[in-house]
């Protein structure tokens, strides 16, 4: 177990290093941020002063090592646009992204698991077939276009829900959240739904195939023979067994939901990390881009590790020591 975690950690560290090198070197190559920051009337002396202040006059490798040293101190540089530390800027946007991602996952699970169960239990009826047809559509719909259609319908045509921003936030344990006020929920609903649709189809399909598979197993036949009620067989025995892959996927997909929230946040102007990333790419705000990418890589590394561990706990057949071979 310990060797497994250590091996995964060293691998993750290597990924992080390669990524930071690639991102840093590449981001350095795209345009000169000084041009964007100073007015066209600036004298050459002004330009030089700004370049020096940002450390852009030093050679590339020196900038990278300085950057690495600072990262180890927990400092990912200052945003060129806002002048504040990039990591603080990101962390201030993090609760918004997390809230959106969690809300989306809750919607996707709350709708997807029951629909998948129905589709699995009644695979040959029109109900099951309709659910599967809808899920194929769900796979095919491009997230950003669904977002636009949602805005078109609920915000422009019906005028029921706001199309952008986060609304009023209230503090929960020191973090600003939207879901505690009605106004906040109204703002949260459309983006969360948009992001959820992207995972809904996956959860439906997974639950359906799990259900179909476990219905053929001996323990279900035995439970039936024992005379257990159908609701107990499905609610307890089937559900418990199909939860293993579902939990794994929900965990694994949480990272991709955060990555995909870049799209949703841009459409709904949700003030999270994803929108900050797109804005920063457009403004050539290098430290923020690099900080975002480093943060998300660390995040993914931990999600992958956590999912492996949860999987091992849920399914005793998984032997971590063996899988490490």
């Amino acid at each position, binding site marked *: 177990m310990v060797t497994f975690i250590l091996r995964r950690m060293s*691998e993750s560290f290597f*990924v992080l290093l390669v*990524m930071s090198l*690639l*991102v840093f*070197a*590449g*981001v350095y*190559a*795209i345009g000169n941020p000084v041009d964007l920051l100073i007015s066209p009337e600036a004298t050459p002396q002004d330009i030089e002063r700004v370049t020096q202040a940002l450390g852009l006059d030093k050679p590339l490798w020196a900038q990278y090592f300085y950057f690495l040293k600072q990262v180890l101190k927990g400092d990912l540089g200052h945003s060129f646009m806002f002048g504040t530390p990039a990591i603080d800027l990101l962390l201030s946007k993090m609760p918004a992204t997390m809230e959106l991602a969690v809300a989306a996952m809750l919607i996707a699970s709350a709708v997807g698991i029951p629909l998948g169960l129905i589709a699995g239990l009644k695979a040959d009826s029109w109900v099951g077939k309709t659910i599967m047809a809808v899920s*194929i*559509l769900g*796979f*095919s*719909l*491009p*997230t*950003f*276009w669904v977002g*636009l*259609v949602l*805005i*078109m319908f609920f*915000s*422009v045509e019906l005028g029921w829900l706001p*199309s952008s921003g986060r609304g009023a936030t209230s503090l929960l344990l020191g973090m600003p959240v939207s879901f505690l006020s009605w106004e906040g929920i109204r703002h949260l609903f459309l983006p969360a739904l948009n992001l959820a649709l992207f995972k809904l189809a996956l959860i439906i399909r997974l639950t359906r195939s799990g259900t179909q598979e476990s219905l053929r197993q001996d323990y279900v036949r035995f439970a039936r023979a024992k005379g257990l009620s159908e609701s107990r067989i499905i609610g307890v025995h089937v559900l418990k067994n199909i939860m293993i892959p579902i939990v794994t996927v929900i965990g694994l997909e949480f*990272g*991709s939901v955060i*990555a*995909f929230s*870049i*799209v949703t946040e*841009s*459409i709904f102007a949700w003030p999270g990390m994803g929108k900050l*990333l*797109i804005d920063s*790419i*457009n403004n050539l705000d290098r430290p923020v*881009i690099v900080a975002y*990418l480093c943060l*998300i*890589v660390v995040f*993914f590394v931990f999600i*992958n590790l956590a999912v492996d561990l949860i999987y091992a706990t849920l399914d005793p057949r998984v032997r971590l020591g063996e899988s490490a071979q």
Partner: protein
Amino acid sequence: MKGLDTAQIESSSKRLWLTFAADPVALFGLVLLGLLILLALFAPLVVPQNPYDLAQLNILDGRLPPGSSSFDEKKFYFLGTDDQGRDIYSAIIYGMRISLGVGILSTLGALIGGTTLGLSAAYLGKKFDSLIMRIVDIQLSFPAILIALILLAVFGQGLGKIIIALITVQWAYYARTVRSAALVEMGKEYIEAARSLGLGHLRIIFKHLLPNCVAPLIVVAAVQIAAAIALEATLSFLGLGLPITEPSLGLLISNGYAYLMSGKYWISFYPGLALLIMIVSINLVADRLTDALNPRLQK
């Protein structure tokens, strides 16, 4: 010693046709996809105007709703016009051309690159195999959109760059698929026979191993081509994909986004619908292909 003889090819293509004929939904997808490809191929012949010839645009026709006639009453815009008076229908057909082209090129690139690396990994084994598979594992633990976004943020936008980004994102799927298929084949006698005959490595890999690993690759390619088109559209929508000179469907949607709030939905909506139809038809075909080519499901 041939990988596939002609009778085998004939019977498998016949079987493929039968699987499509048996499923009306998949057949519909196939016909629709064929139609879209024809429309995209012959774009200049099927549209009323060249949407990017500025001489043919009239600013007085800007933002007309679907079903309007032009200012000079000579033209009819059944899907409306955009802010520059461009016929949306023409723009969609031209956009489809670019979207399909990018999807097909990047899929081909990823297919060739991924297959070569995956086959070599299976054939050479040992260190090379574990190196390639480590990279595949690590890459597949990140969402495709994130990797593509990083690459485009790093190298900037452009037609060539987005194709390279899509290839980089997708090669791993092919490598993993073909490797596992090839590992099964490697244990069979015909490979051993080819080796004992002293055939060259390249010849064994491409003439004997590859033809027997084609079926799973087709399935992956069918699914990935739709994914590539959707990803390109998403990136272009975010302003990180294609430049304004290569207006794919994603860019058309992005262009109309600004007018959505004022109720001028058609500038974004119809290009999005075209994108959706394209992706759905590919997925319907892919779904059927998966069933047809999956040996475990064959009766």
